[in-house]
């Protein structure tokens, strides 16, 4: 593999450039996926049958925590990439681990939130609204969970192999993924929770 020294490490080989572009296209597909989920949610949001409405069940506290944690983790992974560009591998690994820990905390809050919904009688089978709600949130949550595992494999490789064009590329792509999940969450926060609570 030819390595182009004039470019940042994550772009430095041809395969790396292909990977990054491929991942952007994949994000295009993910936007459609979440877009469809949102569309389904908005069609079904008032179709609550005999079940509760959003205003009945949403709780602001865990949602605020989730938002805060996820936004912070997006920031820490940004710092990780910054450290990578400067070649501070140790700092980078630290920030990545911090990001993953925040991700795990996020999932913890989300699990609590789901238990709360089931507790107040808003299970998956209650109504079209609850099904759409839990599927949309669940898809995002599953992405975060997947991301945590993925990130662990990347951190492992950073520790084992150090910063190479390959690991740099993987780390960079993972950071794109993580930021994307953050953006999706902002939509969830604004259009599902805030809109549903007023």
């Amino acid at each position, binding site marked *: 593999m030819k390595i182009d020294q004039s470019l940042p490490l994550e772009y430095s080989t041809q395969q790396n450039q292909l990977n990054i572009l491929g991942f952007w296209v994949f994000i295009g597909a993910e936007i459609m996926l979440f877009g469809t989920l949102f569309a*389904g949610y908005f069609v079904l949001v008032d179709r609550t049958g005999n079940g509760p409405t959003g205003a009945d069940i949403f709780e602001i506290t865990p949602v605020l925590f989730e938002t805060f944690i996820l936004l912070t983790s997006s920031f820490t992974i940004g710092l990780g990439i910054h450290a990578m560009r400067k070649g501070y591998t140790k700092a980078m690994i630290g920030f990545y681990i911090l990001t993953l820990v925040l991700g795990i905390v996020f999932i913890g809050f989300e699990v609590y939130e789901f238990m709360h919904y089931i507790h107040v009688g808003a299970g998956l089978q209650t109504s079209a609204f609850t099904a759409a709600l839990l599927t949309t949130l669940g898809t995002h949550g599953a992405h975060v969970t997947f991301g945590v595992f993925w990130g662990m494999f990347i951190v492992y490789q950073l520790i084992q192999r150090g910063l190479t064009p390959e690991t740099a590329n993987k780390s960079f792509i993972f950071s794109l993924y993580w930021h994307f999940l953050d953006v999706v969450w902002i939509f969830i926060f604004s259009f599902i929770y805030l809109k549903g609570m007023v």
Partner: protein
Amino acid sequence: MEYFERFAIPHPSPAIYASMVAIGLTVIAIIVGLTYFKKWGYLWHEWLTTVDHKRIGIMYLISALLMLFRGGADAIMMRAQMAVPDNTLLDAQHYNEIFTTHGTVMIIFMAMPFIMAFMNYIVPLQIGARDVAFPRLNALSFWLFFMGAMLLNISFVIGGSPDAGWTNYFPLANNEFSQSVGTNYYLFALQISGLGTLITGINMIVTILKMRAPGMTLMKMPMFTWSSLVANVIIVFAFPVLTVALTMGTFDRLFATNFFTTSDGGMDMLWANFFWVWGHPEVYILILPAFGIYSEIISTFSGRNLYGYKSMVGSMVIISFLSFLVWTHHFFTMGQGALTNSIFSITTMAIAVPTGVKIFNWLFTLWKGKIVFTTPMLYSMLFIPTFTIGGVTGVMLGMSAADYQYHNTMFLVAHFHMVIIPGVVFAMLAGLHYYWPKMFGFMLNEKIGKWTAWIIAMSTLLAFMPMFFSGLDGQARRMYTYSASTGFGLWNMLSFIGAIGLTIGFILIVYNVIYSIRYSPRNVGSDPWDARTLEWATPSPVPYYNFAKVPHVISTEALWDAKYRQHDLFPEPYEKIHMPNNSGVPFILGCIFFAWGFSFVFGMWIPTILTTIGIFICMAHRSLEKDPGHYVPVEKVKATESKLRGSQL
């Protein structure tokens, strides 16, 4: 339903047992054959683990042809049942299952892999690349498609076929009205193969954008590559919608959610909307690459470059955009109000304009050309008038007010077959004959080929034109029988005869392949048709590294310039070539996905969990793996080239 009843064992129909035995015997025969001829190693090393885009293309091609016969068998059964009034060959349930599998197999597992075969084989060659951007993922795409297809195909012997139509409308597809596991099969078969398609979409977009030969700007790409690029962009935007819809449908059936139910707030029309937001663009995913193939063939055999290159590209881009804006024409009559109907009526008819532009461009290309009537050209010539019939009747269907008269009649069935058979199937057969020498190093017999083209084209007309009339007379689609007093008998008999003609035509293709394998002269050279684009600059069959030297391009017709305008196509010296390594993981992952889908279909949760873990293990393995590929040394490249090109070099 009782647990074991779901597997439909024992099954009431002896035909199913016969099929089981037949499938079992075939499998045994294949295993014994492979063992006897000691071909397991060959199969594994050369095909199952391959990451070569050309081999993957050929595997798509074989699958597509097999599925053509599977879907064709369903078609002929339907036509036989309808041939005379009050026929009792099939009962209503059986008919439902057959039209459902026929539609699903033909669109998802025949037409899709057919275009994927050409995209895989041709695009990297046309742009002067050595492989696609992600060879591993490419293999995975194929295996996901293949396993999805197999999943749908075993449904009829284990558990029962889907029976809610290929559109799978809820609430018809709900547990209440579709009690067998058939619809579960449908949901998972489409989910798994759809995932493969999405991955191909990403792979091809990156390949086309990033791996073109020096000098090949976007506006110098050959037309088939352009059409593939546009189709793959549509794939990336349309397939996630299907993913979500199928997931929701799966939840409704397996976990009793209420997305598409008629109680607890569920909304059946949501399925119809999602399905067609994917489904209509899907039609253009099929037709645009087909148009691309016609463009290549028409320009080659007219001996001149394509008329109106820029307008060809522009019209494709416009079509891809419009294709997302027309979906509700599939339910004009389901109560959505006059304004909505009018808007979608207009967008629908608007697609006829860029399509017309393309047809006129082909006609202008022919106009001043020196036409050579080869088999691929014959298909292209037969395509234009037949497709136009389909297109014009499409505009008729697009007028929402008129659609109240003939929606869901045989008129519709006639329309889309008149579009999809000339549009897609003819193009694929034309492409098959055109690219066969590139793929295998010898030609298909031209005489048999031309006979076949005529038989298929005329039979298409005979099979589907009568449906326009019976449809206007009120013969509903998906109706399994009718009484003599309706007067549909004659029309349906004619259709049946046409269907037999089509069957003969498709069998002749197989005959042609066998005949040509035995009798066709070998070593036709790299460029048997005097073609114009880069794929014909490689030796036939193409060596695994495609191009020994990186080509340099100056126009849309790189090879033509090299042949007749003294352009030096390969100015670079020989260098060692980097190639990816083979891998068994995509195949294994495909098998796990098959098991995963099968477990889900029957709600067997322990295997479902185990296979899910298996999928993640494969991904983890991929993450940790180091796969630098390997280099082919210069001497080896030189030796291969002089062997393949012989005196031509």
